[in-house]
């Protein structure tokens, strides 16, 4: 049987040979053994280096803005298309961009990958007790090779936290699917951490978030990584009106995180990329998750993470709850 990587190469070759795409976006090996970084191929040869495996990867959807914005705006030929490797979470990001009229669906070739959740190398290392030299992954297990001993760990134990809360295991629709298998990771809406915070007293909550926010260096990586943050000019970069002042103060951090979270309220698709890119590990997912949770609860939305044409805050029902 062909591996997904092989199948991808075959498909990409065909796409380039038939002149169907100008660019293919996928992953290649990064600087360390288990890291994966985005890769861009303008022809088949360049695509040969790309791989698909189950190590943690960055989010690709946002690169589509750079590649396709001009096409969507009609500056460049409409026919130009970009193919992109797409997991369920990427798909939601792509949908977000389409719904927001940033890019056009017809310019994208969705190359779908079913996904059971990606592997957190840090967790594997921890279980092994040292930095793994080699990690192999099969259907159910992860085998981490250490200096002297190997450890077989069940996949479920080392899957990334964000993948545990996955709301879409494979793209809902795709142009090419690289594997038939539907993912078997169960949808697991887990708001338990948020509920824990909710149970704290106001003071505790404030102190908790102060501790988190004080670390923030306002690098805006969370914003840059997010597909829901697709404004032409971010409100934080605008000086008139000055929503966010430049002072380094707790209050400004609160302001920043409040605005950021609210700007993705009803738009966040729970991909977890903001949390992944945060250099100081602020649990942004707990902010976005709270909003999703409340939207689902208050407005009777089944899954707030799935982009819809009209956002939850862009509509209302006459029987919305009355209690504050």
């Amino acid at each position, binding site marked *: 049987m062909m591996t997904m990587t092989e199948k991808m190469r075959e498909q990409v070759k065909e796409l380039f040979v038939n002149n169907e795409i100008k660019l293919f976006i996928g992953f290649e090996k990064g600087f360390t053994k288990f890291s994966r970084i985005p890769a861009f191929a303008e022809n088949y040869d360049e695509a040969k280096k790309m791989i698909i495996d189950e190590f943690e990867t960055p989010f690709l959807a946002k690169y589509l803005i750079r590649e396709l914005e001009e096409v969507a705006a009609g500056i460049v030929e409409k026919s130009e298309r970009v193919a992109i490797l797409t997991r369920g979470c990427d798909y939601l990001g792509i949908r977000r961009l389409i719904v*927001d009229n940033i890019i056009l669906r017809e310019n994208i070739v969705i190359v779908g990958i079913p996904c059971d959740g990606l592997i957190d190398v840090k967790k594997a290392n921890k279980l092994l007790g040292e930095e793994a030299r080699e990690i192999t992954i099969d259907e159910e297990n992860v085998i981490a090779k250490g200096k002297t001993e190997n450890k077989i760990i069940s996949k479920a134990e080392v899957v990334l936290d964000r993948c545990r809360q996955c709301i879409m295991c494979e793209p809902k629709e795709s142009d090419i699917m690289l594997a038939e298998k539907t993912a078997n990771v169960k949808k697991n809406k887990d708001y338990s951490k948020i509920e824990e915070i909710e149970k704290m007293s106001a003071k505790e909550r404030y102190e908790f978030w102060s501790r988190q926010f004080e670390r923030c260096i306002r690098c805006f990586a969370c914003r840059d990584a997010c597909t829901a943050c697709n404004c032409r000019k971010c409100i934080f970069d605008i000086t008139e009106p000055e929503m966010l002042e430049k002072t380094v103060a707790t209050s400004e951090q609160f302001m920043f995180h409040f605005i950021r979270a609210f700007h993705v309220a009803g738009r966040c698709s729970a991909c977890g990329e903001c949390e992944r890119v945060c250099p100081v590990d602020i649990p942004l997912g707990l902010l976005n998750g709270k909003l999703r949770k409340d939207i689902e609860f208050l407005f009777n939305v089944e899954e707030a993470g799935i982009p819809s044409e009209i956002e939850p*805050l*862009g509509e209302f029902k006459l029987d919305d709850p009355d209690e504050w």
Partner: protein
Amino acid sequence: MKKIGVFVCWCGLNISSTVDVGKASEELKNYPGVFYADDYKYLCSDPGQELIKKTIIDNKLEGIVVAACSPNMHESTFRAAAEAAGLNPYRVEITNIREQTSWVHSNKEDATIKAIQLIKATVEKVKKSEDLFPQQIPLTKKVLVIGGGISGMTVALEVAEAGYPVILVEKEPQIGGNMAKLSETFPTLDCASCILTPKTAEVGRHSNITLMTNSEVVESSGYFGNFTVKIKRKPTFVDWEKCIGCMLCQEKCPKKTNSDFEHGMGKRKAISVAFPQAIPYRPIINEKECIYFKTGKCKMCVKVCPVDCIEFEQLENIVEENIGAIVVASGYELLPKEKLSEYGQGKYADVIDGMQFERIASASGPTEGVIRRPSDGKIPQSIVFIQCAGSRDNQKDRPYCSKICCMYTAKHAMLYKHQVHDGTATVFYMDIRAGGKGYEEFVQRAIEDDHVLYLRGRVARVYEEDGKLVVLGVDTLSSEQVRIEADLVVLATAVIPSEKAKVLGQTLKVGTDAYGFFNEAHPKLRPVESMTKGVFLAGCAQAPRDIPETVSQATGAAAKVITMFSKNHLVSDPQVAKVNEKICVGCLQCEPICPYKAIEPETIEVRIGHTVEKRQVATINKGLCQGCGACSVACRSGAMNLSGFSNEQILEELKALCL
């Protein structure tokens, strides 16, 4: 830094007794940006206004704050004064230190502190104010009236009389609508055609009215003052220009068919005019029934026509019209009997609805006004009227009251009793809603003088047994079950909007409620306007109502149109939304929020360096926007803003108040 003037009003003792106005103006003098500050006894008086004007001119002020009474009182006064002094009126802001300060607080110290803070905040707001200019919008002084019933005709006549051209579009071949089908009208029992015919005739000959019957509006674009509509003119297969209305064709046509106008109670020819007083009095061929259309033979009408006006090959055509305002008067229909399975689902010939009863009671109807039952033409000896047939019924998705049934049922029962003196008429009702001039008296007359039996209760079932209709009802006042054997049952079926109302709503971008009735702009204060500016509502298109109410509402709608047309161009309030195209990403999340559909996507071209970039942004139709600002909150980047209440202004005001 702008030069700002501050005027603090004493309002006699109204303000000055609780707020230390002198202290306030003193303190404001030293506030950054304030070039001039003073207090005065009555700013709204002529000398007060003169003071303001003079100060603006003398000091070349770039903005002023008037701390006085509520802006609802004198904002326009002070803005006008500023304008007279050459200052853009939107650079004037009012601080409310009377209604919201001096009158509601008793501690002078607190009130003064608050007043000062409020004034400072307003100064901050004015610093961010901009010149705003009302926009002039051109206006086509021509109105489109959709629907040729009593409401549409009323609007058309009123507007035409005022001297403006009217296009009246009616989907049927003739005007008159539902009212033309009525026998007599409550509460006076005067004959409907007697009062309607003069109106239809006037509409037919009025030089300002262009009548387009057998036509429908299929497309609409533009905005208030400047709509472009496309009207589909369905083929009549008769050249109406040539036709002289001799009706020989109708006489000789060999094909009889059911008449829509008679609601199944009577017949018509395949080529015919619906009724003798129809306007225009011109025949139309029913394509589905005509023998020629079916078999290619016959052409009897062609043979007899003296002016050679039959045109079998006529096609529909679309005409385009530029108009300034639209009045929707698309009327109503009755809930089909087929929806009422407990009352026979339309399978019993002698269970009829109110409109069918009107036809058999009408002097010009199929029975020439003799009330005969449809099945065998017998005069019914026992007749049962069932009110709320489908109305006030959640099961039938019509929880509303149809409003007219109580009255017309009383009328029906009366008409019946006037004809068949020894017959029995029974009415099942739930509540009698006879709120109107002479209405209650009318119902009482039916009960007292004509001995119509009113039973309070709903009917559970109607079925046929031994050639009689059995009505199973109840009289809840005596709590007795009632079983009546009737010859004829009349259902007062629910009033529902015209079948095509929803589609028409979408075409005109006017919202309808869950049932298809058009939504008014405000339930109390703007009942004849729709949410879309320049589109007005009249008659049952908006909600069920009777003739007097329809006529008053139609007259109101006409007045609205005439008011609009009385100006040479329209002026829009400049305090509306605006888009910063540099920032707008074109995601259009603002679009669904706008209640006026004033936001639309637009492709703009921007030059950046050497390249011209095209991209989609949101644009505001300043004619439609009413300035609520809901869109500005939906905009994450702040590209959408509201003039007069901009993000900058509110934030500055807020900061100053928080200190």
